[in-house]
């Protein structure tokens, strides 16, 4: 879920960059030096997980997992996702350096929103925790697609159809991401409940 080089207009790139820079600054401020090792190793895990292909019918989809990133790192999601995207752009040419601000916003913005909304809810009683976990995965992608839609729309009104097609193609990913998040959170709660950020 990212926008390639050369599509967005200057003002959209700049506003994305400014917002992402602000988010990263807050994230870095909240990460102490003794948490950097943890953030870095989690960042490496998210990088690997984002390349896992989950079978779906004859094809497969790859996960985004920004909802869980938010739950594990809070505002730290901004620097962690920024680093992962930067590496992706250098290693595989996914996205690029000029779109990195917008793409960071698309993924880290929803992660932080999910952290604020769902972090208290996933520790509630059954079945509320399951619903909250599903919603966390689902909205992580939905909000990201929403940001992506706005970025395209503000670049060029005529991108409306392209943006809507892209957004619609992510509906399945949202459901799948929700399901995986439910299982993943219930697993983490059993195995290591203290892993979630307070």
């Amino acid at each position: 879920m990212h926008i390639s080089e050369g599509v967005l207009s200057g003002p959209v790139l700049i506003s994305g960059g400014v917002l992402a820079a602000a988010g990263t600054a807050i994230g870095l401020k909240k990460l102490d030096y003794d948490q950097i090792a943890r953030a870095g190793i989690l960042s490496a895990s998210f990088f690997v997980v984002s390349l896992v292909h989950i079978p779906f019918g004859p094809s497969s989809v790859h996960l985004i997992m920004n909802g869980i990133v938010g739950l594990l790192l809070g505002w730290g999601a901004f620097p962690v996702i920024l680093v992962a995207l930067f590496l992706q752009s250098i290693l595989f040419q996914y996205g690029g350096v000029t779109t990195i601000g917008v793409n960071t916003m698309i993924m880290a913005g929803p992660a932080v929103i999910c952290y604020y909304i769902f972090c208290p809810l996933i520790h509630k009683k059954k079945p509320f925790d399951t619903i909250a976990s599903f919603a966390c995965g689902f909205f992580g992608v939905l909000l990201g697609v929403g940001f992506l839609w706005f970025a395209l729309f503000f670049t060029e009104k005529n991108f409306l159809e392209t943006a809507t097609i892209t957004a619609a193609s992510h509906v399945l990913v949202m459901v799948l991401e929700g399901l995986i998040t439910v299982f993943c959170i219930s697993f983490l709660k059993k195995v290591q409940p203290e892993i979630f950020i307070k």
Partner: protein
Amino acid sequence: MTLINEHFASGSSVIHRIDPRIKVISAAVFTIILAISQQFETLIAGFFFSFSLVLLAGLNVKEVLKRLFVIIGFLILIWVIVPLTFEGEQLFKIGPFSVMKPGVFLSARITLKSVSILMALMALTATMALSTLGHAMSRLKISGKLVHLFMITIRYIAVIEQEYGRLLRAIKIRGFKPGTNMHTYRTFAYIIGILFVRASSRADRVYQAMRCRGFDGRFISIHEFQTHKRNGVFSALMILIIIFISILEWGHLIEF
């Protein structure tokens, strides 16, 4: 599979021997100008300069094309949707669909921009090891915490990837067959969960080891970048290129 593939990092071309800091700055300024340019003259010149940089770096053409292939799917999508859905002057008709002139122009601009930017990045930022890139960033006064995060991430991607490979082998040996069903999704979710759990406990051990070796929050780089005449020449050349494409793009705004 190895995720970290520093294919272009080793080499002996002129570009490989330029000071990494100069390459990072040139790449940033050059690609940002291309990304906000609108004139075809600028984009064509930019394409030409990026291509020259790739040639100058002596990159394997096959590998460059393979990497550009990543965006082909996206570009096809743009070419299929944008010319048909754009409003404006009609260029020609295919059956019931009319192809719009501004849509075709926009698609051409996007194609030129994205290919040029990727080529410039391959020639400038991919021609150094990732750790060198980290050192260059720290010398350019990028936040120490961010550089740390970057370095630890590249260090542990390979480790986590091996761990993931081990888990995959373990489920395969136990007869796991992926399919479109709940069991598959549950299994993948648990694998992801255990990856996070192990990453977190590994992080604790790594941090303890760092403290034992006297880590005090500073990022120390013992790498010294050498000064050489070619760095000056390359910087001058990049500045000229950047001025040239800026004049192509915005020159008409200045009254002589």
